């Protein structure tokens, strides 16, 4: 079972009824990657990680997800804010400068 939303293919509306009533839509609807302005990327050292889930809780974008008792980061959406690295109590997360790919 997926524990986070993925990117869905989005067909542009062709009829007015394809629009929702009012500017609202099902939550977790992602149609495109959104990480282009990231300058630093978080890298987790899984040896140091204790699985406390503090980074998972504080991530403002909700891109850190639970994986096999520890965590992983969805780099399609991570903005590189560094809150996870700052908050990690065992310094398991390092912010590495993006190489400019």
């Amino acid at each position: 079972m997926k524990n986070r939303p993925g990117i869905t293919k989005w067909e542009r509306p062709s009829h007015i009824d394809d629009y929702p009533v009012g500017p609202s839509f099902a939550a977790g609807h992602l149609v495109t990657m959104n990480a282009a302005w990231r300058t630093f990327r978080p890298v987790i050292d899984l040896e140091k990680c204790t699985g406390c889930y503090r980074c998972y809780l504080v991530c403002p974008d909700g891109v850190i997800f639970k994986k096999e008792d520890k965590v992983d980061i969805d780099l399609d959406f991570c903005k590189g804010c560094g809150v996870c690295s700052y908050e990690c109590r065992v310094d398991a997360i390092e912010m590495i400068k993006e190489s400019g790919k």
Partner: protein
Amino acid sequence: MVEEKKFISGNDAVAFGVRLARPHVISAYPITPQTVAVERLSEMVEDGSLKADFMHVESEHSAISAAMGVSVVGARVFTATSSQGLLYMSEGLFYAAGGRFPIVMMNANRSLALPWSIYGDQSDSLSQLNSGWIQVYVEDAQEVLDMIIQAYRIAEDPTVLTPFMVNLDGFLLTHTYEPVSIPDQAGVDAFLPAFSTHNKISLEKPLNMGFSTTPQDNLEYKYQQHKAMLDSVEVIQKTDSEFAERFGRKYGGLVEEYFCNDAEVILITLGSVTGTARVVVDRLRETGRRVGLLKIRYMRPFPVNEVNRVCGTVKRVGIIDRDISFGYEGTVFTNVNSALSRLSNSPETVNFVCGLGGRDIAKEDLEGMFLQLLDGSGSGEMERVQFIGMRVSINDR
């Protein structure tokens, strides 16, 4: 079904209507001349006869924001304001309409500063016609009570989902007393079902609500709002008929005609001045003059077809405006003329700007308007926009 009759003010009537509509939350800030309505509601919450949460908000802007918050969880909410308060929440009005939240609001029509005035005119709500709210203007306390109940039903209709403003004249209606029939709760419960909507947040179906758009999509959302307001006409008529069936009072939908069928000239009114105008029509009819009165109830959606049907074949139409769009003309006048411009032959129209800042519109003023419409100005053209009841002479333009 026995209706209770009480001798109450317009503000009291609002509170009675709201209690019958069973909102979950009242979120309102006091402002003259609406204050008593909100005070009555707080008393009703306190004595347990109204089972609602009464929120103390710190301003009208907060009042409408809180009201949206209530609507977002699918609950029924009521708010009320007037004049400066309405304008303070102005950005919220557009927000609520765009968000498709069926909030019902009572607005006590009061003049806008400057000069600062607590007295009645209709410049406040008429200045907000573009906000996307359905707007009705009532003639008396009975109508305001009845319209609060009808408002929820119309606003919450799934084809409408548009907020609804019930306007009543400040002091003239809010603070005067008349005998009002209070419908029974069982009757109202049968007429007005519980609020149910898909446009709400929930744990079962989480929504991302109130998002922004790029130029790619903005127009389509605005079109939806516009279409919903046009679709509301049918719901308004149906609600008016069903209300009449159940409670015995029929208001006529978007407009009410009084002796228009064979009228040579017609006066168009909004709100309490309609009552005074009826007496003048009766008086003039006794002298054999064929005058008629068209009460516009809803300014949005605007009764284009009704105005054209009723006024299309008369000699002259006078439009009373208790507001003025500076540098041009009264707002009701602009709206009526736009409707009439669709006709290949339209009557001459005259704007009577009067009753600003609480100034009385006397029977003599109305009689003068009718006589002017009937006889014309005598020499040359009639002035198109006339300020009635000026107490000083002015320089010729």
